[in-house]
């Protein structure tokens, strides 16, 4: 089969030949034409088949003519210039960057466009005298780069990026370098004539450089230490803050009273390394959002209709919809509110809500719930509830979603620092008391030296570097975690709860199987020709399934809504559809065989019942193997919103012990997780649709699985690419090993602390000893954790390929 020159997909619906190239659809061909006519062919030279098939956009962006909506989307709006930023999930390669930055060749009124690849955004400025926002968006969509515009965008408070960590790190690094350079002479040359003369200016300069480090760079540690003392919980920042304070005060006193050089070098180095650890851990997947709720799924505006004259359309914001409004939903649009169907029939895909990509048929006056995606000709809906009161959005009123209820996770570092801080204070006090009797002049010296040398720099670096590194390795293997802490939480999991539809089964693959008398090739040809005329989604799926390429003329074609289609080819009548529909005029009575849990399409050819096609979601490859692996060390539960139709199948396939819980609505799922947690279980929930959102938020770790990570998934702690599903066991194993590494690193750093304490309690801590010991311990910890986490991380890659 040939592949499309533009998008690289196989041309399963026939090849379109154009300019010696093959295309899979007219959309791809059009994009090629646009680019080719504007001399932008370089797009195809940069990467092989870089394109994205554009989607239909009829009327979809009409709301961009509404001035108030435009205003809320724009970054800048002055005179004739408007600047707007869009999130474009389709951005994926260098060709995308190139073509998006050459938009001005396609529309001369666009002055500049700049892509931010990691964030998948493009910032476009254009001249409003000649063009407008809508035409810019339509141009992008035509090229396949449809911007993602949602309710969340309209409420963005500010675009301010938090760069404070970069500044703090810069300040600390700057001071650290300069202080090292100034303190170096005094390390070795003792009592040298010129040094004795100039050392005061060196010392005062060092003091000057250390001020911004203590008062600016280190300020987060003081704040966090204060908070943790206030909540009577000693986290790792408490000994760090004590260390920094003691370092600074003692150095200040030494310099002021001409007692010594002080420890400015160690102070700046300590803060610099700590911030470096923080910086390293701060890997974020900018283009992914882990905080999405229903707002991100819903469009900004819908087409509202005048109740008296339904041909009168105008655009309105989704939030402004009230009861009894009439709205128009076009093909592929999401239904944002609960309502009643006022058109004859509609096909709604509730995969956003249930995770199951199955089209549900609705007829006139049927109730329609928010969250469904309509496919087919435009439909009219009468609103019964506003957005906030809709069935789907009600879930978000649950307290799990209020941020106050975030369960606080105690990290390994925090647990250890509890004991560490207490032990440290005890050692400092004992040695102070000891020296009080031995040599009272040295008491303060020893007391402060203990606090300085025991400052848990290496301890504080162990977790950030191990977890930060694993976070990156997981990212390479397509598990995108919200923050590094999640790895520690993963290591503690003892129960895994799976959603069924969309998680254990695939969304993409429909298995279509035929049951009944086998069809001859001729019969298949006839079937395909009848199906060709129908736009029913099941017909389209079946049409693509049946392999045949003969064209016949159909006579007497008719389609009965909600029933099926019929047609005649070569005087042979064919009927395709519901069982009752196709068997209606048969002489013999046949009993339906199919079970109620499947979607089926029945067929009669020449007044003879032939059998039916069954549509089924397929279980992911290797899911039973994965469950068997997991069942050895975890409790497993399958939680599903479906009826129990497949219990038998699952029980048969799974050789391991798995609890099956069916008929769960979104709220039941949340309560189920809660009840397990009350039994002290640590739960990993793996789900996909919005129906799992509550359970994902409630569980200790919520992973959302996604066929395409650019498609939006509900709020969660991590997003797993569906292709990596079978590696869940490996990810969990690596997380556990990561925590082991941190524990080893703790022992390692304690060992350094004991050496340092040896110097400190005996009263021999020279600035040069501190200046060597502290970086040495930090660097060796960084080295150890980075290398070992890299080694354990490699295993996932090895096993998956």
């Amino acid at each position, binding site marked *: 089969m040939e592949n499309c020159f533009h998008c690289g997909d196989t041309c399963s619906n026939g090849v379109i030949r154009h300019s010696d190239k093959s295309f899979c659809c007219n959309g791809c061909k059009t994009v090629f034409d646009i680019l080719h006519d504007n001399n932008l062919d370089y797009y195809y030279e940069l990467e092989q088949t870089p394109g994205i098939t554009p989607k239909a956009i009829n009327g979809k962006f009409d709301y961009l003519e509404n001035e108030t909506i435009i205003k809320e989307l724009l970054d800048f709006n002055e005179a004739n210039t408007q600047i707007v930023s869009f999130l474009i999930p389709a951005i994926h390669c260098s060709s995308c*960057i190139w073509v998006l930055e050459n938009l001005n060749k396609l529309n001369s009124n666009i002055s500049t466009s700049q892509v931010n690849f990691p*964030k998948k955004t493009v910032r476009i400025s254009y001249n409003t005298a000649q063009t407008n926002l809508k035409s810019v968006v339509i141009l992008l969509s035509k090229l396949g780069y449809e911007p993602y515009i949602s309710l969340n965008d309209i409420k963005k408070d500010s675009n301010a990026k938090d760069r404070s960590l970069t500044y703090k790190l810069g300040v600390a690094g700057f001071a650290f370098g300069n202080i090292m350079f100034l303190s170096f002479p005094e390390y070795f040359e003792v009592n040298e004539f010129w040094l004795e003369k100039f050392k005061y200016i060196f010392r005062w300069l060092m003091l000057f450089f250390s001020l911004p480090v203590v008062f600016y760079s280190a300020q987060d540690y003081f704040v966090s230490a204060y908070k943790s003392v206030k909540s009577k919980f000693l986290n790792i920042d408490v000994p760090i803050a004590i260390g920094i304070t003691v370092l600074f005060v003692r150095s200040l006193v030494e310099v002021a009273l001409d007692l010594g050089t002080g420890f400015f070098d160690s102070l700046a180095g300590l803060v610099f390394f700590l911030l470096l650890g923080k910086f390293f851990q701060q890997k974020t997947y900018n283009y992914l959002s882990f905080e999405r709720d229903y707002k991100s799924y819903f469009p900004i505006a819908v087409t509202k209709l005048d109740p008296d004259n339904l041909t009168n359309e105008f655009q309105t914001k989704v939030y402004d919809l009230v009861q009894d409004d009439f709205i128009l939903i076009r093909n592929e649009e999401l239904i944002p509110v609960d309502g009643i169907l006022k058109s004859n029939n509609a096909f709604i895909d509730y995969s956003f809500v249930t995770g199951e990509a199955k089209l549900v048929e609705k007829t006139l006056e049927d109730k329609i719930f928010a969250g469904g995606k309509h496919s087919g000709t435009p439909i009219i809906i009468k609103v019964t509830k506003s957005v906030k009161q809709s069935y789907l959005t009600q879930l978000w009123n649950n307290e799990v979603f209020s941020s106050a209820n975030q369960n606080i996770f105690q990290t390994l570092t925090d647990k250890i620092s509890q004991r560490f801080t207490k032990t440290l204070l005890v050692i400092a006090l004992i040695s102070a008391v000891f020296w009080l009797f031995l040599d009272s002049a040295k008491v303060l010296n020893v007391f402060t030296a203990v606090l300085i040398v025991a400052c848990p720099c290496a301890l504080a670096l162990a977790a950030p570097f191990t977890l930060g590194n694993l976070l990156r390795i997981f990212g390479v293997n397509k598990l995108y975690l919200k923050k590094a802490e999640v790895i520690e939480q993963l290591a503690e999991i003892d129960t895994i709860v799976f959603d069924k539809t969309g998680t254990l089964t695939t969304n993409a693959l429909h298995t279509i199987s035929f049951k009944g008398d086998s069809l001859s090739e001729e019969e298949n040809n006839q079937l395909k020709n009848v199906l060709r005329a129908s736009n029913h989604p099941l017909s389209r799926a079946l049409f693509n399934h049946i392999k045949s390429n003969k064209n016949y003329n159909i006579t007497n074609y008719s389609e009965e809504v909600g029933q099926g289609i019929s047609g005649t080819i070569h005087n042979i009548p064919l009927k395709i559809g519901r069982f009752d529909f196709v068997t209606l005029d048969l002489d013999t009575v046949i009993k339906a065989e199919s079970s109620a849990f499947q979607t089926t399409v029945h067929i009669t050819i020449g007044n003879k019942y032939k059998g039916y096609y069954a549509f089924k979601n397929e279980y992911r490859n290797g899911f039973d193997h994965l469950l068997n692996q997991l069942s050895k060390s975890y409790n497993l539960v399958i939680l599903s919103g479906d009826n129990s139709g497949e219990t038998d199948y699952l029980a048969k396939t799974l050789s391991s012990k798995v609890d099956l819980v069916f008929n769960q609505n979104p709220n039941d799922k949340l309560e189920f997780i809660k009840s397990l947690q009350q039994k002290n279980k640590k739960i990993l929930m793996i789900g996909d649709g919005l129906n799992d959102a509550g359970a994902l938020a409630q569980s200790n770790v919520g992973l959302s699985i996604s066929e395409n990570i650019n498609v939006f998934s509900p709020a969660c702690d991590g997003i797993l690419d569906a292709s990596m599903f079978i590696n869940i066991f490996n990810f969990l194993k690596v997380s556990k090993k990561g925590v082991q590494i941190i524990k080893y690193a703790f022992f390692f750093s304690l060992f350094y602390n004991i050496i340092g304490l040896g110097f400190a309690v005996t009263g021999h801590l020279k600035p040069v000893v501190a200046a060597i010991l502290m970086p040495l311990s930090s660097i060796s910890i960084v080295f150890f954790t980075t290398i070992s986490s890299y080694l354990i991380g490699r295993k996932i890659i090895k096993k998956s390929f």
Partner: protein
Amino acid sequence: MTIIYLLLAISVLVALAFFAAFIFSVKSGQYDDVYTPSVRMLFDDELVKPATKKNKITPNKIVKTNKHN
């Protein structure tokens, strides 16, 4: 040896100059996206290419548009 005061002053000034440059670069957003510029740099040659090509291709293009009409 009093020259050391001057040397110190210069060294601190140079350091401060680099520090200011760093602050400026962060502020102007140079660290917000550290990937795209590395790709964009490679296009610099290619951005000119369509313009030069245009002149050569124009006759072809006219023929093509005629065909369409």
